[in-house]
């Protein structure tokens, strides 16, 4: 059964230096508050896993929390580059960043295999691309019935999976709706999991389009109202598009980035997230 604890406690208990950590949320429900808590707790050498390492991973990478990134699209959506990510890859600042790069379909299937207790997944993907040559984690596989050659990718089972959802009940059952992305797979694939939520309610009344992750499949639930900002939580907060544009300027320069993190993350009260 999931235990409902403060965010600071959950992150301190779950996330250790050197862990592989997946903070997911595909375009919606991105767990910024949890990411900021990881920065505050000064974690190092994390293997960060995420299909779309956007602003939250730009921040973690820029603060030197990561030694490796496993991903499929690293940009500021609708705006352009992630400057901290590029600075790490192009100039090794503040630390070199090893990359393992996939396509969305490959990453999604890796999480599916992880959630399914299988060591690998099969897809029609990557064939003819130069992605194949850059990692040992893309291999051909032959159909034992037709002889057709397809592509295999290994399961992802991160040490810690972190997602944000709209609500949980006091027993720790989690409910999310709207674009639910890859969240369920990440929680089920992870060895330990944290779900931050907009609110904890007495009862999860059924909602169209909602999925529920039962409490017994989650390690910790933590309340983090507004915890997906500047991303959004459908029904609770709206996407702060201006911040995504502003981030381009903030992150372009190492110094303005550090100043911003200092003011909005490090000096922000623990358990509270101030992103814009």
């Amino acid at each position, binding site marked *: 059964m999931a235990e409902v604890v403060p965010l600071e406690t959950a992150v301190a208990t779950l996330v250790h230096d050197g862990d592989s950590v997946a903070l997911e949320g595909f375009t919606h429900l991105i767990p910024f508050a949890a990411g900021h808590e990881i920065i505050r707790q000064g974690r190092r050498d994390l293997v960060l896993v995420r299909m779309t390492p956007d602003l939250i991973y730009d921040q973690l990478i820029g603060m030197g929390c990561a030694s490796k990134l496993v991903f499929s699209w690293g940009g500021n959506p609708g705006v352009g580059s992630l400057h901290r990510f590029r600075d790490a890859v192009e100039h090794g600042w503040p630390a070199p960043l090893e990359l393992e790069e996939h396509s969305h379909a490959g990453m999604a299937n890796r999480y599916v295999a992880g959630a399914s207790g299988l060591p690998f997944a099969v897809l029609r993907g990557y*064939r003819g691309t130069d992605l194949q040559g850059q990692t040992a984690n893309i291999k051909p596989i032959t159909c034992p019935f037709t002889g057709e050659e397809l592509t295999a990718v290994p399961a992802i089972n991160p040490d810690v999976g972190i997602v944000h959802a709209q609500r949980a009940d006091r027993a720790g059952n989690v409910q999310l709706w*709207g674009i639910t992305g890859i969240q369920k797979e990440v929680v089920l694939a992870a060895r330990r999991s944290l779900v931050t939520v907009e609110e904890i309610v007495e009862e999860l009344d059924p909602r169209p389009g909602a999925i529920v992750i039962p409490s017994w499949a989650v390690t910790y639930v933590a309340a983090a109202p507004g915890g997906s900002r500047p*991303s959004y939580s459908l029904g609770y907060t709206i996407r702060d598009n201006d911040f995504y544009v502003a981030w381009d300027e903030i992150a372009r320069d190492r110094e303005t980035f550090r100043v911003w993190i200092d003011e909005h993350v490090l000096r922000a009260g623990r358990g509270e997230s101030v992103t814009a």
Partner: protein
Amino acid sequence: MSHTSDEMMTIAAARQLRAGQVCFVGIGLPSTAANLARNTHAPGLVLIYESGTIGAKPDHLPLSIGDGILAETADAVVSVPEIFNYWLQPGRIDVGFLGAAQLDRFGNINTTVIGGDYASPKVRLPGAGGAPEIAASCREVIVVVRHSRRTFVDKADFITSVGYGSGPGDRERLGLTGAGPATVITDLGILAPDPESRELRLTHLHPGVTLDQAREATGWDLAAAPGLAETAPPSEHELAALRALTTATPATPSRGNQGGG
């Protein structure tokens, strides 16, 4: 009405779509073009965004592929694994729209790294996103990209998404089920692969653009297809519909390929 070259590009892209088609859309110009088509000549166009929204009917341009308006107006919202596995991979999608940082003479797309080598590139781009499998599995692909020598290169530094590989027969050898990049729409004109050699050549020039201008902006010896035509200029109706869409929405840069966050 006068128009900009970006408007011509977007309208030319929208014209490629027909009512009843199913279209896999990324943010930026592809999304603008697809929504323009839906608002004008192709009202039944089905829009799919890789965030899992099927049949989204936004009344303004979404600001990210995960914009709430997509989920709220969709016929169905499915998980990310489902959108790739059940909907894209089996070849159910008619048209995939892609952008490119580099596009080579055989329609191969690079959105990964430019210059240097993969481990220490000169420019690190966002990467693949959904593009490799969109390029592989959609029945056809339309690439929408501004025309320049930096983008239109003889050989891509990195093949993120396969067009025609190194020429005829490569898609078949690789087992790619879709037909590949049937059309490339730029701010100067329209390109399509030569049926024999699979090399991209110019089929249309937008009004006021010369063949020399297009060749100057292309990093290989760009051929003109027999019967090279002029693109019909934007109609007043098209321009008005496009401007209604874009003024309802803050402008978004167009460099992004499929992807988002």
